[in-house]
């Protein structure tokens, strides 16, 4: 898949994968570790914003979260 990169390193070869199928998909603009960081309009440090977000979490929401056993 194009647009995905390990810290700007694109894997070059893949053992066992058909070479003719490594056709790059169209590149899209924006995002990714190699893209400019999105402009943050909130000047508060991330720690303060995370604390604000945590304060907004309903303290009782875990009491309502009841699931079935899965698998």
């Amino acid at each position, binding site marked *: 898949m194009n647009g995905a990169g390990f810290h700007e390193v694109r894997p070059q070869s893949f053992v066992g994968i058909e070479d003719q199928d490594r056709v790059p998909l169209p590149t899209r603009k924006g995002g990714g*570790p190699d893209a400019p960081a999105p402009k943050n309009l909130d000047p508060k440090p991330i720690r303060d914003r995370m604390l604000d977000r945590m304060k907004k979490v309903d303290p009782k929401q875990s009491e309502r979260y009841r699931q079935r*056993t899965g*698998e």
Partner: protein
Amino acid sequence: MKFLCGIETEFGLLIRDPEVKGASMIRQEDLFRRVRDHLFRKKGFGLIDLHQRAYDEPPGNGGFLRNGGRLYVDMGHVEYAAPECGTILDLVAMDRAGDLLLTEALEELGLSGEVSFIKNNIDHQTLATFGSHENYSVPRSFPFNERGLDPLVVFLSTRQIFAGAGRVGASYVNDVILPFPGESPTVSYQISQRADYVVNTFYQWVQMNRSIVNTRDEPLADPLQFRRIHLLLGDSNMSQYALGLKVGTTRLVLGLIERGEAPRMTLADPVATVRGLSHDLSMEWVVELSDGKTIGAVEIQQRFYEAAERAFRGESDDTDWVLDGWRGILTDLSKKDPTLVADRVDWAQKLVLLEDFSREEGVSWQDPWMESLDLAYHDTNPETGLFYPLEEEGTHRRLVSPSAIRQALRDGPVGTRAQGRSLAIRKILDNPQILDYIIQWFGVQVDEGEILYMLDPYRSYRQEVEDYFAHLTRERGPEEASS
């Protein structure tokens, strides 16, 4: 060494309205159906099953998606199975595409303020647990017996030190079967979500007897050539990095076992090790071996890393990334400071967040608010979840971009049979004349015609799919084909 991996995720659903508490299960199932129907019938994200796949999967229960993955309702959960991926980056993108798919469906249905999909594995109120299942393709010759799998048990029992998603509290649901020595200790926080629910080392079934290695033999491919290693021990990761490292290191260890080069050691009690490590926040992580000696979990992982370094360095960029990441995380874990790995490890990231909140707000670990924050970490709604802002800000490392994740909603991974499946699904969706189809992991059939088998998961079957549908068009004649 070939790499082929998939992840299945069972999602929980948080309903915010306190009035629906008593009927939340019924409400959840209703919401699952609405989301499924919206995605398949209104948005055209895939093909709903027309046939009975299994006794508990009737027609209409779910279907295959444009990206070659699958979405369905299973055991009271919405389950997303990512398509078979040939690279770690593809796997991470495909996994996160499932989160995006479900979150956007809630938004489009006008439900995102009312409910959230939670990508975790437990609730704090009942005995429930639900899975994140890993699937790895290995050759049929893989030594799938207790002796051959001993190294895998050792690796998986200790892997949680970097792959665990963390949770507030503990579940002693299994203490009837496996009582903890002495009284059940109070656990404020532990590193794994699933550790308390594992009761066996090997077992073939998945419910009520969860094992470290699941022994079910269902390759979903040519059974004479392939085996599918199906693991249900792991946690659902929010961290792309932790997910990539988890599947990457596991595949390398499977490769070491294939080559007969895995470190030889056995644990005195693998199940007790899984739980004991998870409960040990000191990061000492002392493990007892079957010969009575003790060793640290980091040192065990270090031995596996060194063997993999010798065997696989330079084989591919994926392999080298895993080796570098593995070495780095073990170095940092050995310093016994969770803040050093919080940018790559879910349990450490969540612990840092919650400790900060507890300190700032004076909220104790026994306060139900901490459990609610635990859930919020796994909330897939970017407006309310705690994880995504950390990734967005660069506080927590990511491997794939938002645009790659969005692309993964539509396009299957390249170079595996998921590519052919994805292409076939697109062709059926684009052709309203096709009224009947059966899509399986291992093949496609249209209008009760020939079956196109895809028994080799490492092949794309792209040309075969093109030929199959070209033949179908020719059989129908130019008039029907052009109408």
